[in-house]
């Protein structure tokens, strides 16, 4: 365990960014999102959740896959270059680290997503413990301890210090890079704060949220429940929940004709809330919003765990709770089934 004074953070960032990209929470136009560091940007480590989760560091909202060009009548394909430079993501929250693990389950299994894999391979995650959990947080329900960060390096902000603990080789490597700024410190230095924060977590409104009954076996009962009909009605069919979500991984593939410089085939985030999601030649297999709405939560709480050894594709970051224009969210869904015992 090491530590560094908060005033030295800029120096730290400069040092990291000297020979590689550094992504971290940046305040721009009143909102905090992850972005590349530069002297010009305003770093914000206080805000609990970035609006967009950091997932788009690995799985960008849009990325070009390859470009098709035409030279006097002949087609030729230019694949997009894969990420081949190391980079660092600083300040990613424990829940979002878990979110990345969820994405790994999707993109790092066969067939491997080379674009995603390349980014993961070159990334070093510096994960930051939470100091002030908010009422929207329910990471505990997914077994996440918001004061025990994962990733490659774990950091805590305590008083005027930032405590730094490498968790693996990647972490060690980064630590060596910035050693000159770090000083040795005791593990115990963070224990007190950890305890305090854990107390707060116990008091959160969603502290006792239970996921009982949400698993692969529950498929039919949940799918056929008519609670959905009641739940979905306020849904505006926008993509806010999916686009701020750290685990939503659906994407669409589209072509863009740039004219002179060829046709770009790119992929971009898609939302199961959209009416043309998985649209096929014959039309759409989900014809109404109830079905789309149900799909999202069934996927996160039933289908995904069924296929991934019980791992949910929700990490309780609370972004959807905070951002849904119609005040819907996954918690309301989970509770609704609890209260009604899944029946009705």
């Amino acid at each position, binding site marked *: 365990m090491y530590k560094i004074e908060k005033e030295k953070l800029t120096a730290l960032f400069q040092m990291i960014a000297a020979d590689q990209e550094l992504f971290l929470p940046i305040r*721009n*136009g*009143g*909102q905090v*999102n992850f972005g590349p560091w530069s002297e010009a940007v305003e770093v914000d480590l206080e805000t*609990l959740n970035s*609006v*967009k989760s950091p997932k788009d560091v690995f799985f960008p*909202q*849009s990325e070009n896959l390859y470009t098709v060009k035409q030279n006097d009548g002949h087609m030729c394909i230019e694949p997009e270059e894969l990420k081949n430079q190391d980079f660092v993501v600083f300040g990613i929250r424990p829940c979002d680290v878990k979110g990345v693990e969820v994405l790994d389950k999707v993109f790092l299994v066969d067939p491997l997503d080379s674009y995603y894999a390349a980014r993961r391979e070159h990334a070093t995650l510096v994960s930051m413990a939470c100091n*002030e*959990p*908010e*009422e*929207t947080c329910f990471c505990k329900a997914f077994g996440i301890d918001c004061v025990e960060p994962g990733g490659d390096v774990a950091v805590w902000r305590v008083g005027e210090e930032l405590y730094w603990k490498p968790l693996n080789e990647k972490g060690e490597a980064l630590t060596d890079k910035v050693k000159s700024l770090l000083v040795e410190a005791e593990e115990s230095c963070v224990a007190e704060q950890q305890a305090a924060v854990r107390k*707060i977590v116990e*008091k*959160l*409104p969603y502290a006792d949220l239970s996921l009982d009954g949400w698993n692969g076996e529950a498929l039919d009962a949940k799918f056929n429940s008519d609670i959905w009909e009641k739940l979905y*009605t*306020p849904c*505006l*069919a*926008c*993509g*806010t929940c*999916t*686009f*701020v979500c750290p685990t939503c991984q659906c994407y*669409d593939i*589209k072509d*863009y004709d740039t004219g002179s410089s060829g046709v770009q085939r*790119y992929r*971009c*985030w*898609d*939302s199961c809330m*959209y*009416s*043309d999601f998985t649209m096929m030649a014959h039309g759409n297999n989900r014809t109404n919003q109830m079905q789309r709405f149900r799909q999202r939560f069934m996927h996160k709480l039933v289908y995904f765990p069924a296929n991934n050894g019980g791992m949910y594709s929700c990490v309780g970051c609370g972004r959807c*709770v905070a*951002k849904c*224009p*119609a*005040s*819907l*969210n996954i*918690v*309301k869904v989970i*509770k609704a089934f609890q209260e009604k015992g899944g029946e009705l």
Partner: protein
Amino acid sequence: MQELVNRAGELLADGSVARVLGWKAGDLSYNPEPAYFENAEALEQFVYNGFCGANLSKYMIEASKLEGKTLVFLKPCDTYSFSQLLKEHRVDRDKAWIIGVGCHGKLDIERIREQGIKGIELVQEEEDSLKIQTLYGEKELPYQSVMLERCYVCKGKEHRIYDELIGESKETDTGERFAGVAEVEAMSPEEKFAFFQRELSKCIRCNACRNVCPACSCRKCVFDSNKFDSAQKVNVDSFEEKMFHIIRAFHVAGRCTDCGECSRVCPQGIPLHLFNRKFIKDINELYGTFQAGEDLETKGPLTNFTFEDAEPGIVAERG
């Protein structure tokens, strides 16, 4: 509020309406959701408070297709949206039982958070103030300091269309409606460009602004259809942010009642009303004051003209 519940109960009981469209208490004190209530029991969850900003008029498009009448609670500004939708044949007046509810201005949870308030456990509305219990202690704020932007430039607390009225209103329009637009207009082209670039670069194309908008009532938006091969799911290039927001604003120009829902729901806090309100300001200045949704007769400014209209060159002349 109890008055609303009682009246709704009566109308449900005597069969005047088949359902009630209102707001249902959320699991946090600031997130009530739009909901239907079919019976008295359900109505126990009915709530009407400072966080009921959601404009229910758009839900009436679907409600108009249901059997029987729907009782809908509309705030003064919501009624503008309803009558505009009525003018465009998107809702069925005969299927609606409109109770106009009083309004003291609605609260903006984002503004509350901007005050550095975290871990909100309970929000209590008192006369002119908010008592907020948080995990990190109790806070108190003047009600007037954390309202939705639209409430500071309220069009007035008069309902434009209703069957009955319940509850008192309080004027909240302390701001100048077009000040924000004028501020941008006063900038140099470079500043304007930088300003909107900064704001729009945040856009994640979640379509919340479009889907919540009562004027964006198209069955299929041009940005979802291939009619123009303009379908877009994401802003790959900064141009596409502009394209989307300019065209959206243009499509609702002369129809937008300035209900402010777009700005309320934007997860990135983009001041989207600055687009619509720019058109409203121009229309007022060039073609005479016009307020969409004010009545059912007046021709919309873009489906109308005079022989003496200003030439497009005026944009340059105004500088």
